[in-house]
């Protein structure tokens, strides 16, 4: 309860205070750009695909929206980031609702780690306004590549073995259990290396605020690789967390004028539909196939973003 209250205070501080003091209208005009009825229609369709792919591996879809809006539709990256922040929140809320009710999500772990992530998101959102567009593109591409690497080594593992609660996990009762329909039993699990997980979550929050993504990859890495939660709990808990983290920086982006309704609305609706379809498909596909698909998508998007940052794409 105390942790939840602290997270809520951080979020309210971000949205209603930090967002209000940020200077409005600091970006150059986009009036030379193009926009017609076909744009929101294509953005909507593209967002369905992004939401579908993103939700399949528990990342929310925002990670694909920024390349889509900048590289395909030619919007400034700050518009793409603002729209993606909203899409991450919508996707997280929609998918997390089902996961929470199915008892797949560890809410206690999620809210505990949100303390660290929300703080990082606030710092990242401040830094984002100080960096140039091409630098953000390069950073975003490199982060995508780094995020994709651990997925290669996680294709075969079903459940982590030999994990014991550390002191923090015992104090905060972070261990839990979830119903595994694939294994046909209730799986109990414990949590380890909590301080390192907290540090990783701060980094995840920083990246989220900086680049407008949920940084679900970093959250999954922290939960799965460092704290050794089962993969299904890691992805569903990450899915719950990305929305809360994105909400922390949404106020700042809103006040800065980075969330244009005509771009954010079709993105949010499309991502949501894609995520709902993806959540239904998830049970029928193997983890191996899903990871291979997503690794390919991430690799292409990352390379494109780096090239775009260097002015080559």
């Amino acid at each position, binding site marked *: 309860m105390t942790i939840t209250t602290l997270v*809520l205070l951080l*979020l*309210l501080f971000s*949205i209603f205070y930090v967002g*209000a003091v940020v200077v*409005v*209208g600091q970006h150059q*005009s*986009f*009036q*030379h*750009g*193009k*926009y*017609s*009825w076909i*744009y*929101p229609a294509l953005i909507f369709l593209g967002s369905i695909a992004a939401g579908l792919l993103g939700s399949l591996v528990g990342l929310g879809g925002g990670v694909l929206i920024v390349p889509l809006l900048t590289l395909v539709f030619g919007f400034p990256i700050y*518009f793409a980031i603002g729209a993606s922040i*909203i899409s991450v*929140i*919508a996707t*997280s*809320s*929609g998918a*997390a*609702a*089902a996961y*929470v*009710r199915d*008892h797949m999500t560890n*809410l206690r772990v999620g809210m505990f780690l949100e303390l660290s992530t929300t703080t990082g998101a606030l710092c990242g959102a401040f830094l984002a306004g100080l960096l140039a567009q091409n630098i953000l593109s390069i950073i975003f591409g490199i982060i995508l590549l780094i995020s994709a690497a651990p997925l290669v080594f996680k294709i075969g593992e079903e459940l982590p073995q030999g994990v014991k609660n550390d002191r923090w996990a015992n104090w905060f009762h972070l261990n839990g259990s979830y119903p595994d329909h694939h294994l046909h039993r209730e799986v109990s699990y414990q949590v380890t290396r909590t301080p390192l997980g907290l540090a990783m979550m701060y980094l995840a929050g920083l990246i989220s605020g900086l680049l407008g993504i949920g940084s679900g990859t970093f959250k999954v890495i922290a939960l799965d690789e460092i704290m050794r939660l089962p993969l299904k709990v890691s992805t569903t808990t990450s899915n719950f967390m990305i*929305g*809360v983290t*994105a*909400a922390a920086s*949404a*106020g700042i982006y*809103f*006040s*800065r*004028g980075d*969330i*244009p*309704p*005509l*771009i*954010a*609305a*079709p993105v*949010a*609706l499309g991502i*949501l539909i894609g995520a709902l379809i993806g959540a239904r498909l998830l049970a029928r596909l193997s983890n191996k196939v899903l990871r291979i698909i997503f690794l390919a998508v991430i690799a292409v998007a990352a390379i494109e973003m780096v090239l775009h940052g260097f002015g080559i794409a």
Partner: protein
Amino acid sequence: MLKKQEPGHELVSLPELESHSSLDTEQVVQPSLAAKKEFTTNLIGWILQGGVVLSSIVILIGLFMMSLQPDKFAPQKLESFPQTFSQVWIGLLTLRPQAVITLGLLLSVIGVL
């Protein structure tokens, strides 16, 4: 008679517990805690889903209002939108589509909170 609260139900009698006089308080309290956790989990799930549905409806209403405007796809529209809470409020009072869409987007943020 010992009683136990089951998830989503009223208090129900558990006659079988009466025969086990050796049951300590912790064992009886455990189902109650589980029921409370179940209720909280379901509540959070429904709040999250409700927020998404509500914000989606408001966004759709805003897009519909936008489609009725003659110059709806002018590039200038991309940049002329409310950027503060007061601007959103004024826009809502004057039924501006961009303000309605922005309200829907903000509702999605509030849903997370």
